[in-house]
């Protein structure tokens, strides 16, 4: 199945207090591509993402999904057609893994029986043995397992768009790497248009086909992921330097941090 295009046209978002959080942002995501939004906290990434499923409404501009104005579409219908994964997972604590995954298809009126096979299939795809996990409650899962279920839930209604807000941010580095692979495998099997908000440059490079760098409510760079590291755009170079400073310091430790010399004391 083909994914959808998402187009932001001159999107602005002004907070009730008057501060401009997004300033005429224009961006087009092609079908079945993965776009990572990078930038500091407060740069407007999450707000931009939440506008796609109408969890936030732009105060200016227009969003088009597959060329159709989002503004004119029913929010509930739009949301059921879009997968949504967040850092805290947000699994419903009173529902089993199976019921969590089958929720959106059920909301759309599919019978539980027809969803049954798909739930098993999805759990398998995200690396959870259905026989073992489908009846478990969320509190019986580890953080990584919960995030797998969250991912399965976001795909259960054949959504063409997947919104991911720091999806793996709360996981330890190894689990995080595992989940990134799970996601890539899934997207190979069922292509989606993915919008990913992340703070992790490596994650963006690994998962995304395009990287969009944001600062102060504006897009300051929009590049194919393969060109991001070699870009000669000053903001990109600055960002990469800032992110990799820690590693650079480690590598160059002797020159960056000259050996400590005790000051001479004079009696």
């Amino acid at each position: 199945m083909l994914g959808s295009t998402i187009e932001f046209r001159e999107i602005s978002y002004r907070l009730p207090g008057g501060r401009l959080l997004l300033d005429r942002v224009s961006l087009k995501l092609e079908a079945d591509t993965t776009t990572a939004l990078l930038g500091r906290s407060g740069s407007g990434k999450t707000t931009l993402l939440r506008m796609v499923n109408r969890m936030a409404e732009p105060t200016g501009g227009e969003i088009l999904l597959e060329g159709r104005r989002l503004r004119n579409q029913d929010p509930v219908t739009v949301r059921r057609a879009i997968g949504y994964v967040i850092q805290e997972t947000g699994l419903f604590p009173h529902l089993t893994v199976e019921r969590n995954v089958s929720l959106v298809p059920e909301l759309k009126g599919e019978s539980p029986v027809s969803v049954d096979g798909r739930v098993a299939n999805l759990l398998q795809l995200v690396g959870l043995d259905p026989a073992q996990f489908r009846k478990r409650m969320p509190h019986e899962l580890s953080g990584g397992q919960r995030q797998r279920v969250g991912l399965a839930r976001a795909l259960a209604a054949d959504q063409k768009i997947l919104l991911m807000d720091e999806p793996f941010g709360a996981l330890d580095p190894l689990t995080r790497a595992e989940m990134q692979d799970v996601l890539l495998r899934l997207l190979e099997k069922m292509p989606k248009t993915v919008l990913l908000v992340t703070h992790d440059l490596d994650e963006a490079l690994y998962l995304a086909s395009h990287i969009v760098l944001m600062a102060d409510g504006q897009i300051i760079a929009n590049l194919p992921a393969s060109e991001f590291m070699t870009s000669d755009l000053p903001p990109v170079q600055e960002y990469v330097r800032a992110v990799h400073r820690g590693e650079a310091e480690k590598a160059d430790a002797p020159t960056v941090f000259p050996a400590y010399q005790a000051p001479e004391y004079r009696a």
Partner: protein
Amino acid sequence: MKAFFARYGSQIAELTVEHIWLTGWAILIATLISIPLGILLTRNKRLAKPVLAVVNTLQTIPSLAMLGFLLPLPLLGGKAARIAITALVAYALLPIVRNTYAGIRGVDPTIIEVAKALGMTSMQRLTRVELPLAAGVILAGLRTATVTCVGIATIAAAVGAGGLGELIFRGVASLDNRLVLAGAIPAALLALGADALLGIVEKKLRVPGRSPA
């Protein structure tokens, strides 16, 4: 002792049933009012403070005074059982309204947000997420209300509504301690029984992994 039970046994049973009947109706009516009211307050937070204040005030009226206020109300037509049930409902409102409100507001906002983002309508969020997650807390309110009502229902005998209070009042009037105990002990057992029973249900409804509010 044998003679006492031979004489009062059937009366004790009858009055116990009456006691349960009064309390049961009161809790049923109070629940039908309080849970929707509590839900309404979560949707309309500006109403919450004044409404909770009113319900709270009702709770502070001494029970005999409450019955006194209700006696002359034409709506209740001077019918003892109606007066008693109305008074009990007034006392049962607070714990149920408050816990419904607190229970729903205590649901993790992330969960509500996700429910919305997955495409649940406002009603689906309420019935599929908020109420199930608040059920344990709401039931705890129901439990408090029930125990309170079982206790206050003993006062209902003062307006002639019957219940186990009748034995207590008669015992006090005739200085017969056995009669007082014949009313007091079953009333206490009823309260304990209701508490234990609802306690078990509450435990079942509590969602694992969610700290009780």
